């Protein structure tokens, strides 16, 4: 079976005011499709975390939502700056977030580990100076 729905949401770097709007739309879209509450929460949390990461850390990027009968996939692609040490970035409590993000209640170094915990499958690829791609899938059955 192919992809039933594919939607792309551009995410602007530093747009703290609107951060989370894509995640809200994605959550409401999936809810309308009848995705169950528990899976929906896993997708929503991971989506919100990755969207915030794009706003806080990236130079801009996009979120892609794909819905298939068996799974939901979220892909986050940005245009840099890339993560020098992925292992370190995946450690709980490690954060390079700026003061503005911390003032809003973020930047505790929980984002990437929390995405991994919520997703059924999690993959991160990053190259300094090129960008980061995070692919997460969530089993529906």
């Amino acid at each position, binding site marked *: 079976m192919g992809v039933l729905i594919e939607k792309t949401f551009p995410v602007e770097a530093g747009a703290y*005011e609107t*951060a*989370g709007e894509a*995640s*809200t739309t994605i*959550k409401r879209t999936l809810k309308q499709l009848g995705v169950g*509450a*528990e899976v929906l*929460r*896993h997708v*929503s*949390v991971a*989506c*919100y*975390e990755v969207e915030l990461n794009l706003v806080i850390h990236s130079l801009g990027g996009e979120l892609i939502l794909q819905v298939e009968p068996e799974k939901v996939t979220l892909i986050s692609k940005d245009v840099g700056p890339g993560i020098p040490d992925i292992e370190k970035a995946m450690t709980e409590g490690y954060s390079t977030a700026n003061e503005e993000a911390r003032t*809003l*209640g*973020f*930047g*505790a*170094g*929980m*984002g990437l580990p*929390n995405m991994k*915990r*919520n*997703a*059924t499958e999690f993959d991160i690829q990053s190259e300094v100076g090129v960008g980061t791609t995070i692919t997460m899938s969530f089993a529906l059955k």
Partner: protein
Amino acid sequence: MTIGEVKDILEAKVLIGGDRMDEPVDTACGSDLMSDVLAFVKDKTVLITGLINPHVVRTSEMLDITCIVFSRGKLPSEEILEEAEESGITVLSTEMTTYTACGELYVHGLPGTKKRAGAEGA
């Protein structure tokens, strides 16, 4: 416990969701760090926080948190309240500090959230 009981225990004002006082709540958490809030399972949960910005509402919507209590008498802006209304989240404001509000709810039998969010912990 119901949201109405939470309101009474915390001597709180209802800012949004006056018609939802009969809704049940099972757990509570107190935090100003939305990163941490996102890392714990929330269902029928009350969030007590001294942090006021739209991300408190957005974080709550992602986690299906049903009720937000702003502590120390803080009042959110109209924009934040509108967002909460749209998300169907009840908003209360109490004069108590976060610590006291958590303590009051705890001694009245509302437990804290324990489980980690995520596929392996849920």
